[in-house]
């Protein structure tokens, strides 16, 4: 136990560095993915014929196992295999695949009566989207975002097999050196990071939906 704590103490700067890059590799695609998923999902709702294609297509992308995608992306992008851009692109694709469905559901969760009232009061398309639809869609969006965040944290760790430095590296190193503590650090680190993301998203959700907190 004492040896373990010693090891952690010695490696703390590295652990934090890896955690930071892990957070970036998992978190940035969340933001970018959401930014892309919002207009795509909105489009899917307006054009029901496209909707089938869009939702089906994203479902298809999500089906591809993560390691396979990490290996195939350099082919598409023409990058070297160790370029971290590969991971960002792959993670964004996964996030997008998950979130498009979520955005469609979230926008659909806004009561029809509310939307009609907003339009009747004089809101135009984009204005209504920003002022009415999106705020009311936040709960469902946040729930999907949390799922995507946890999924992302787990998938990023797989990229350790290719050699990207993040918390997953402790998993591979620990296995190679037969050092279970290191694997433990990797696992716990991922769990903590996933928890942090979860709390952050919940916090953001609370901040954006004050009307759900009042009363009773």
């Amino acid at each position, binding site marked *: 136990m004492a040896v373990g704590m010693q090891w952690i103490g010695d490696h703390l700067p590295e652990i934090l560095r890896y955690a930071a890059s892990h957070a970036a590799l998992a978190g940035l695609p969340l933001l970018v993915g959401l930014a892309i998923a919002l207009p795509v999902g909105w489009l899917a709702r307006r054009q029901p014929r496209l909707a089938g294609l869009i939702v089906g297509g994203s*479902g298809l992308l999500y089906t591809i196992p993560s390691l396979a995608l990490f290996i195939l992306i350099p082919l598409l992008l023409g990058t070297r295999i160790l370029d971290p851009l590969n991971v960002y692109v792959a993670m964004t694709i996964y996030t997008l695949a998950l979130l498009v469905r979520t955005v469609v559901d979230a926008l659909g969760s806004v009561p029809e009566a509310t939307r009609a009232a907003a339009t009747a009061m004089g809101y135009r398309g984009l204005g209504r989207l920003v002022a009415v639809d999106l705020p009311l869609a936040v709960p469902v969006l946040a729930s999907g975002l949390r799922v995507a965040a946890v999924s992302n944290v787990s998938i990023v760790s797989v990229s350790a097999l290719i050699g990207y430095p993040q918390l997953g590296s402790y998993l591979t190193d620990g296995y190679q050196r037969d050092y279970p503590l290191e694997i433990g650090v990797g696992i716990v680190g991922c769990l903590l990071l996933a928890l942090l993301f979860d709390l952050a998203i919940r916090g953001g959700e609370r901040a954006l939906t004050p009307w759900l907190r009042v009363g009773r």
Partner: protein
Amino acid sequence: MLTSIWAWLTDPASWSGRDGIPTRLVEHLLYSVVALVLAAAVALPLGAWIGHSGRARWLVTAANAARAVPSLGLLFVVAMLAGPRIRGDFAYVVPSLVVLVLLAVPPLLAGAESGVRAVDPAARDAAYGMGMRAREVLLGVELPCALPLLLSGVRAATLQVIATATIAASVSLGGLGRYLIDGLAVSDYAQMAGGALLVAALALAVDGLLALVTRYAVSPGLGGISGKRGGRSGVARRMPAAPTVGRLSHGSEPS
């Protein structure tokens, strides 16, 4: 780059022997199927019971939370702990199989639970009220109505298993993941990419198959996740003869 991948894929040597594509494909499918069947044997009845009785809901929440554990980490831990204790050929298979089963349980559990919970309580009440026995209600009403969500859980579990079986090659499991891991070890991109394409194709094919199964197994009367939603018909009812007291009629229809 593409040409070397194509060369690898079409090379007859890639298709023969212990490391050949057919062998690896079969291995991959075998591990996946066995893991799914074992997980389903536990998770489906348990999930159905939780959905039916409404108790022990926390099991589903806990299982879902457990999905946060990185699968790679789980593989390594189990391999390290259990590997040395098992002798013989199965030393490499058992740890990975255990992890595959563990990872397949949460989506199957959630799918079964939400599926059974989604069964219309009025339909269930009517089923008992008409004289169906418990087994008849389960098989004739609850299971068919739970099918859409249940099958979506099966699909999620299958994808999870196929993906994890791929990375399990790093703990010496066979299957298509071998090409990715071995290719990585010797920097043979053609092998890596070829293997990746095969894995992707397998995942898409299996998921497509399950989508077809869902389409045909699920009654068209159930909307939602799968199946076509029947449109509302505008068929007018035939009304009975005019009631005794009526408004002064406009004299038109006998109604």
